[in-house]
């Protein structure tokens, strides 16, 4: 027979959320110390999908490591590859043709929209609304189709090469992208009517999980987490790279610091990315997509190099220490979600579990990117 569980009024219990739990979107485990429905303490436990990408970076040659980057964050893969190719090009002095840079920017922004759309759907699903996910996935499907036609894959791209691209865009792609922009703008209006204006949705997010500026800085948060707390930081603006200075776009910043602010930042970012794609298509220069002269074997001279890029999930930094060999001596990946996630432990104390999981959704976690 069972012995009855007798809980004292001030007694807490441990709730293991994950590694398999619908709200963690992957194999994240959160050890929550609960007092009824309130969280007394939470501890995120990571490492369930660790694949040693950094070690692989040391063991593989530079071109061999190209495909690893898109396995980190499977939703916004191109941004990560972009950082890597920019870094290696900077280190080994490869000049990229302008057309290739423009196409890279267009592709990265389309991928960012796709990533934000998926986040939007999954976030609303965390709050219990299932239909927006389906709408968002249908819009995302258009982007994936476009990217598939050019890059050859739908999720884990290996499209960027050192010095340029694997494949040039064709007229079909440009026509499809031009068709996509107004369609996406129309969809955004629909999402705002269906979700943003919904009273239940607003009540669940407004004022929930306030993150102060100081806290964001302390944990090194970036992306919508920082921008929703009033920190105007976007690598594309603050440390410009590639052809981003050529584009006219805004960085949405909200000062409310709550979950709704983070939501609004990402929704506005979709519009800004659409603007970049639009301008990129207008300005797209002709010419080659690979440089004329490119070293046969990529061997950056000995030194210490760093490149940061703004991916869909925040500021992604990649540091390369080269000893002049054909493998990196050390390759350090600074993944943005890792920093964003560690906010959760401190911020969710005293919250109810359903608010805490809504807050976790607003952080936009992709677990393979944390564990690398």
């Amino acid at each position: 027979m069972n012995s009855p569980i007798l809980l004292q009024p001030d007694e807490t219990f441990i709730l293991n959320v994950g590694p398999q739990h619908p709200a963690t979107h992957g194999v994240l485990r959160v050890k929550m110390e609960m007092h009824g429905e309130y969280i007394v303490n939470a501890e995120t436990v990571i490492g369930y999908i660790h694949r040693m990408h950094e070690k692989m970076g040391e063991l593989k040659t530079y071109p061999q490591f190209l495909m690893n980057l898109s396995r980190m964050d499977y939703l916004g893969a191109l941004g990560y590859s972009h950082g890597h190719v920019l870094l290696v090009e900077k280190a080994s002095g490869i000049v990229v043709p302008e057309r290739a840079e423009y196409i890279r920017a267009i592709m990265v922004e389309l991928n960012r929209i796709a990533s934000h759309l998926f986040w939007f759907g999954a976030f609303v699903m965390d709050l219990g609304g299932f239909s927006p996910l389906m709408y968002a996935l249908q819009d995302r499907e258009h982007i994936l189709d476009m990217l598939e036609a050019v890059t050859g894959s739908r999720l884990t791209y290996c499209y960027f090469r050192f010095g340029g691209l694997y494949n040039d865009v064709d007229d079909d792609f440009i026509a499809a992208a031009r068709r996509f922009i107004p369609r996406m703008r129309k969809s955004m209006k629909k999402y705002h009517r269906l979700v943003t204006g919904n009273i239940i949705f607003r009540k669940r997010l407004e004022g929930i999980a306030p993150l102060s500026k100081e806290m964001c800085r302390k944990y090194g948060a970036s992306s919508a987490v920082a921008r929703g707390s009033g920190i105007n930081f976007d690598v594309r603006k603050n440390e410009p790279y590639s052809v981003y200075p050529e584009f006219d776009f805004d960085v949405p910043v909200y000062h409310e610091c709550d979950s709704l602010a983070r939501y609004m930042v990402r929704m506005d970012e979709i519009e800004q990315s659409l603007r970049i794609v639009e301008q990129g298509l207008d300005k797209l220069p002709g010419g080659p997509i690979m440089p004329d002269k490119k070293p046969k074997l990529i061997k950056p001279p000995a030194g210490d190099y760093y490149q940061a890029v703004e991916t869909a999930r925040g500021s992604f930094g990649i540091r390369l220490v080269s000893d002049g060999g054909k493998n990196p001596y050390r390759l350090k990946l600074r993944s943005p979600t890792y920093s964003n996630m560690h906010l959760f432990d401190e911020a969710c104390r005293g919250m109810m579990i359903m608010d805490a999981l809504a807050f976790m959704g607003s952080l936009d976690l992709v677990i393979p990117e944390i564990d690398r």
Partner: protein
Amino acid sequence: MRLTLLNVIIAVVLAIAFAAVNAAYLVWAERRGAARIQRRPGPNINGPFGLLQPPLDGIKLMAKQLTIPGGADRIMFIIAPVLAMFPAIMSFVTIPFSDSIVAKNMNVGVLMIFAFASMGSMSLLIAGWSSRNKYSMMSSVRAVSQAVAYEIPMLITAITVVMIAGSADLTEIVHQQSKSILHWNIFPLLGNSHNILMPFSFLIFFMCTLAETNRAPFDLGEAESELVAGFHTEYGSMGFGLFFMGEYANIVIGSCMTTILFLGGWGCPFGLFPGVWWFILKLYLLIATFIWIRWTFPRTTIYGLLNLCWKILIPLSLFNLLFTAGLLKVF
């Protein structure tokens, strides 16, 4: 005497069959409706329009092993799903579908249905408690506090209707509203009370039905993004199937009650051709609303839900009760 007993048995069997078929095919309707809302086909492979899906699902569920987690209270664990289905089916016995189609008419029909409805939360409590799963436990605590809270405005609103009709007999309540749409309790412009607040009462009753049946946006008991599957996390096989069917049977009961108390039962809006078809039409329109709401709204929070009940719905329904009492005294 014997004949009456036989009649009752036949009627009860028919009621059970109605409940079971409805529960099975509402799952199909829900999936098709959800698919329609989300621009996808939904189940359409098995049979025409996927109509064979529910029996096949049933066969699949029955073929599965019923696993009882170690440390669970075995007896309670098995009783809980039965208890989820049983009161819902028993409620069908008193529901009058038309003048003649009723298994057993009682003069306290309203009371009996609410008595059975409150047994439903018992099964959630037992299921959550006996599973020995922290998620189930939290879910059943939520479900019970929700059910207890929402029964109050629901009962008060029902009492308002009973006061207007002057009877707790469901058939009698429908007869009072049978003349035209203006006699229905939702807009009682004619009839014996001229209560302009009744549309609010209808809304309160409908919301309470949503909450009582654990439907979105009040499905906190099985909030899948927080509590995995809530109280039925540990249930597989037909245990899960019974909970599922119980939920849909409860939806049918809730919609039947709304139809009888507010929408004139089997009466036609224009007083023509009253009959069971009007009842069925109103019933399924309400159920379609249930499905529509579920696939449109996100979930509320548990404190938002309880605040809504204790701070808004209960005072409003109490006020309406007093207001109606006053009106009945005046007219």
